């Protein structure tokens, strides 16, 4: 029994390590970034480090523009796909597709970015307009990357709807699609909403693939069209961190971006978990 106690304690230490890491990360980020986190920073319109101007509003808008658009595209393709997987497909088909989707989740983002840079960007430049690097390119690339997560979570929510619901509806004479539309979907709706929110969080954290296709203008502006180029919160950090002078306001500003990013993603994850939990209680 003594071994059991000790074991339990050691295991607890291991488990709390994640908490410690997250705590450390938060502490470090905050410590470095807090001085810069002012309304002027969050709502400032100009990001120009050599002029000591650190306003990230256009960057936030740009990030949201790319992310939300990508989630919309992913939803339009992904929710029907998850409906298909959960309601309309035989077991073996679902297995194959779910497995493929799980593989897609992990495809190295640099390869996707490579594809975006070499195929997508020239295509947009030649057939749609602008320089090719654009919000549009970011949409396509990001949508592809968050699709798998979206489909998985949505499909899980759909499958969690009790079979009795479906059977009751079919017994009443409804077609399969009517059942799905009027019975299954509403029951799974909170889970699906959670999937969307998680997708947004995942998309916000993506760095490499978007960095290669979205343009990085010198002084970002609030985008007015899908062919505009934007900066993302993640790519700003990635590009500028290596040269921001130690202890300079610039470096603090980059940490502050990290803080903003971290909190936005954490908030989204929290909302999603909260939303799912509400469904479970029901």
């Amino acid at each position: 029994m003594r071994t059991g106690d000790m074991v339990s304690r050691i295991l607890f230490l291991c488990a709390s390590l994640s908490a410690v890491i997250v705590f450390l990360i938060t502490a470090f980020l905050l410590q470095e970034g807090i001085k810069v986190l002012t309304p002027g920073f969050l709502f400032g319109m100009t990001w120009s480090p050599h002029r000591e101007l650190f306003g990230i509003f256009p960057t936030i808008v740009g990030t949201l523009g790319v992310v939300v658009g990508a989630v919309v595209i992913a939803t339009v393709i992904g929710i029907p796909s998850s409906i298909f997987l959960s309601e309309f497909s035989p077991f073996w088909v679902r297995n194959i597709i779910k497995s493929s989707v799980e593989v897609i989740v992990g495809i190295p983002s640099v390869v996707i970015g490579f594809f975006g840079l070499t195929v997508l960007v020239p295509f947009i430049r030649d057939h749609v307009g602008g320089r090719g690097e654009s919000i549009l390119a970011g949409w396509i690339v990001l949508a592809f990357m968050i699709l798998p997560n979206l489909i998985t979570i949505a499909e899980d929510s759909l499958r969690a709807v009790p079979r009795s619901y479906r059977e009751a509806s079919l017994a009443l004479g409804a077609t399969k699609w009517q059942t799905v539309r009027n019975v299954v979907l509403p029951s799974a709706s909170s889970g699906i909403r959670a999937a969307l929110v998680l997708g947004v969080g995942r998309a916000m954290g993506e760095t490499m693939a978007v960095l290669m296709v979205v343009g990085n203008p010198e002084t970002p502006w609030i985008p007015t069209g899908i062919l505009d180029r934007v900066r993302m919160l993640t790519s700003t950090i990635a590009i500028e961190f290596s040269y921001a002078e130690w202890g300079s306001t610039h470096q603090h500003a980059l940490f502050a971006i990290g803080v903003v990013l971290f909190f936005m993603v954490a908030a989204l994850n929290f909302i999603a978990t909260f939303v799912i939990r509400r469904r479970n209680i029901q």
Partner: protein
Amino acid sequence: MNEVQKEKLVRALLYAAVALSIVMLPIIVVWVTANGVGAISLEFLTGRPYRFEYGGIYPQIVGSLYLVSLCTLLGGPLGIASAIYLAEYAPDNVVTRTVRFFTETLAGMPSIVIGLFGLQFLVYYLKLKTSLLAGAVSLSFLMLPWTIRASEEAIKVVPREYREASLAMGATKWQTILRVVLPAAVPGIVTGVLLGMGKAIGETAVVWLTAGSGLEAFVPRTLRSPTGSLPMYIYLLATQGHTAEGLQNAFGASLVLLVMFMAMSVSALLIRNHYLRKLGP
């Protein structure tokens, strides 16, 4: 349009949606393979980079393998131990919920933030310098929550009867876990770890800031040496390559990376499918 026709139309649309979802996978695989296969040769796989875009990728391949192995060695057992605790020992109190909350938060953290932390804390503060060690530890931060999640799932799925039978025969809780539960959960755990490795090997943002330039012409000799990696190599050549050979090398490296990634992911899934059938749906 009556209901039956509507149903058919909807089915067609759903098929289309599914096709669209997975269409990018074969497109990318075919694109990388078609363009990259020309770069693959013995010199490419065993040679070293030269003048930025010529030469081979041996140090990059080995660097990536080292990074992933070390990261798994660090994050794997730790993640499994955490999962055991969460699944078997954790009481349902505030502390447990906090730990779970933090694990979930870590899972959602953007990789650039983890890279930033790795740079600030490991490279600068702990003076590990840009190195294999800094890169692997940062990657393990990334991998930890996934390992925990997958392992916890795997442990929870083990039927209760296994545990009860073992306890009934007089074994302690720990003995039960060690000799009965864990072996049964191994396939699920291995799947989770392999999937995590697949993700880690393709990770660029973290490695960019902590592990090395990517174009090293040597294999890391110690843990404190900087190390090349396939993702960095691909990124640098894809964005800056200006010769046909450079671009082809980027494709070749992408192909190698994809193959390694697919090997890990596919074997993970095969293992899981095989053993899922044993344990039942």
